[in-house]
């Protein structure tokens, strides 16, 4: 089922927000990566077609932003800030803990397809460093392995409870 068949009304309302169709490229890519799990080649071409854009332009956008995924990711994308303030407050420890608990190195996805771990730059929440972003939701002050364990358990539980997840953060409560 194509995006326009499945999300026709939502896409129409997004297009109505902009004077030019191509301005809707980001929201449409968010829909596409939620629908297909990540931005497949075909998904980006589909968006280009919907917006009458040259496909190259859509690939450019997808390649530029760290919240658009052109490789397969898990249901939760965990992004840890390793920039200076977070690094001072234990970001490297947080990453090490996550790697250990998930059993994967950075930029990998757990075999059950639940978590992808990534390093990112500043998440603009330095006062709560170190910060973890899970599908655009913030988890603050993750200074001990216990706190990390609790967060992972919560995320896993939410996924298993059948909650609708969005790697694009379309349902992020913020």
């Amino acid at each position, binding site marked *: 089922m194509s995006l326009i068949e499945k999300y026709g009304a939502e896409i129409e309302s997004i297009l109505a927000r902009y004077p030019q169709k191509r301005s809707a490229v980001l929201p449409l890519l968010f829909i596409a990566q939620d629908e297909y799990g990540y931005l497949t080649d075909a998904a*980006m*071409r589909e968006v280009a077609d919907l917006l009458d854009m*040259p*496909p*190259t*332009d859509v*690939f*450019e956008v997808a*390649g*530029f932003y760290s919240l658009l995924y052109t490789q397969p990711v898990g249901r939760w994308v965990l992004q840890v800030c390793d920039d200076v303030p977070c690094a001072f407050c234990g970001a490297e420890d947080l990453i090490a803990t996550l790697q250990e608990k998930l059993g994967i190195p950075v930029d990998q996805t757990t075999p059950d397809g639940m978590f992808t771990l990534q390093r990112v730059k500043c998440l603009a929440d330095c006062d709560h460093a170190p910060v973890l972003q899970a599908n655009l939701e913030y988890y603050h002050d993750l200074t001990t392995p216990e706190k990390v364990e609790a967060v992972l358990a919560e995320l896993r539980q939410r996924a298993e409870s059948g909650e609708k997840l969005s790697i694009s953060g379309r349902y992020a409560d913020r």
Partner: protein
Amino acid sequence: MPNVTLVIDGQTVTVPAGTNIVDAARIAGIAIPVFCYHPKLKPVGMCRMCLVEVWTPKIDPATRQAVIGEDGRPVMTLMMGKLQPGCVTSVSDGMEVRTTTDRVRFAQKGQLEFLLTSHPLDCPVCDKGGECPLQNLTMQFGPSTSRFDYADKIHFEKPIRLGDLIYLDRERCILCSRCVRFQDDIAGDPVLGFDNRGRTWEIISKSDPPFDSKFSGNTTDICPVGALTTADFRFKARVWELRPTPSICPHCPVGCNISLDMRYDRLMRVMPRENDYVNEIWICDKGRFGMRFIESPERLRQPLIRKGDTLTPATWDEAIALIAEKLIAIRTHAGAAALGGLASPDLPNEDLYLFQKLFRQVLRSPNLDFCTGAPGEPAIIDLGATLGVGKGTNLSNLGAGTSVLVVGADPEEEAPLYVLRLRGIAARGGDLTIINPYPTKLDRTPARVIRPRAGAEAFVALALLKTLIEEELIAADFVTRRVQGFDELKMRLRNHSVASLCDAAGAPEDVVRSAAYAFAKADNGIIIYGRVALASGADLIDALADLALLTGHVGRPNNGVIPLIPGANARGALDMGVHPGAGKKRGLTAREMWAAAREGRLRGMIIAGMDPVRDNPAAAEALDALEFLVVQDIFLTETAQHADVVLPTASIAGREGTLTNAERRVQRFRQARIPEFNTPAGWDVAQRIARALIALGVKPTAPDGQGDGRGASRTLAKTAATTASSDQWDYAVAGDVADEIAATVHGYADTTYESLGLTRKPQWGRQPNEAIFYDGTSYENTEGVGVQIAAEADNPKATFTLRARVPPLFATNDAYPYTLLAAPRAYDGRAWSRDSKLLPRMVTPHLILNADDATALGIAPGGLVQIASEVGCAVLPAQIDRNLPRGLALMPDVDGAPLSRVQTGPLTRIAIMAHISETVGTR
């Protein structure tokens, strides 16, 4: 624009306001190094190589006056307190620019150190080595060592294909975006972009097929490093081994100036040569990559003579003797009118001139044509000789104040460089109207698009005329002086309104009116018409002529008509008189020749450089009915296989000559190598035949038609008379023929090789120090920009008669409800494409249908369709186009397209049905 005076490195310079600092410095002869800046592209300030100190007078905020120091001179401040990029900083009065201070040198050194952090330094194996700005600027401005760790260089797989033709080496790329900007702004094919960020930033192309542009090769010219290279030239040669030979592209009526870069006698690469009047510094991929046929192993090497069913090798003496003997025999028993000649509109002027001279003066036959006589071939209706763009026209200077009508043409396929020229005019503020029955890539240019029904284009032109009359937009003074029949035209149009004419065309009235207004009010007006306009016929083209006349847009530079007639030298063929109407006695057209041959009235033919059997397999039957057929070509074409004698000729690389382009610019190409297999030029073949005929006692007549000395200046005629007279065929070199053309052909008096070699210097801003101001590897034009010959309208005394009339509507036919048009394609898969890297891009035969029509007919994309007209039917794959108007079907005119099987004329009524292979066989 007002001028601005500033000081650069102590030198006072006055330049137009708005000039950037890099250009201002160039005008003063000072070189500021650049990578991303290119004079044909908008500046972006990406590479930071052009950082300079910019000092401006200090302004007192209270008084808004310049602060004067104790020495009585203005106090200067450094702009923004730091260095400024010269390419994006405009000049201002009183500014002082310093380009050689320690601070600037430090920045340049640092910038190069950065650019080289991950550069692979593989110059010894890099195709750009020897003509690379990164090499040159590093030598001049760069540090000799780097503080970056060599082991820390980032590595990529190298190279990767951006498309069939262009390779990308991401390690060499300095991310200047010249290629991206060229594709977006100049070519209008936005197929390149940037992926990722930071150190993994890279160029990508995601079009289908990748790098889908007919201008892709130009990106390798303007790439300031070795990041983009062509599949055609990769690892072929070192650039300093090459011998660039000035040439002219033989593929279309644009006549782009090119260079054949030879190593000894082998063609290594084709490069653009700048000529502002023709191609600026660009060429299309057909010109760049479509020249490998020259070295094809399938080239004809020696004359062939038919012995029974086979063509067997013979000597030139045998072949020429046989030709002379047979032609004389036919002339004796059937008369001169039983002889006919067809010469290709791709042949140079020298060949065409002697070809017609052979026929008119030696054989005394007026049967000459440059058409193939295929059933769908439109009549060639030429406005170039009469109302062509005025002498001195230069499209690259035009912008605001210019209005261009592109009527029934697809420039991208017929004359690709015109896309760039027209986009340039639009980008500089010009007004563009596109009138075509189907969408073309040119529609993407900011333009007014009028989409008439196929065959009803004339009604748009008439609606434009009627608007001019109604809204009194006529150039009254010009019309009074030089135009006749205005009242009669008004009478012919009196019963028609703009609305009714627009209705007949299926075009929106308001858009037509605004087009008429823009065209009439413009300072310069140009009309370009092409293949579809020719298919539409005289009704349209006469109306276009009247449009140019009523608005006074003729007889001046940058005003007039540009006909895109198929062939690289159709203009030359018309001017040299290779058409049946050129002489006093009218000859047979190609189509009439086929009929005459079948009926036995035409007995002998010479066909030069043309393959009519390819376009029209039915012609083979006519050829076989001839007593004697001579074919002169560089390949054993389908037509040649029917010949009694086949004569091989040299390609454009093995001889010299001239071609006349669509704007009537005569341009000379030089000989790039010794003739392949010792083959002679076409003009020499005609000479050998003529000499043999004369030796056997044939008496040539006085000139008739072209070559009769009209319009040539007396002195020139005299000089030429000493070198060549009508019965003396002693041309030693192409220049001898060119002298005779200059002396005798109407309008060509200025076109001796001497005047063709003149160059206006500088054509457009090249840096005095070429190595630094890097605008690409296109060659400077040192061998002449050619000579544009005058159109009749350039003569202020010439008057013209208005001829437009309202034609009947194109008849519909319920049995054949669709209209079939042949669509020109640049990549047509014909002889030129042999051994070319473009082969995967060649268009294969198919039919293009509207999406709704296809649905109604139950045709799926790629499925087979059967089409039928009154004369025949054909089966071919379908392509669905949702933007094509309903009721129209396009068949690309490419190698193997079954056009001649179904066409009844340029426009054909057809029926279309899904093809079911079991029940309906291919006929």
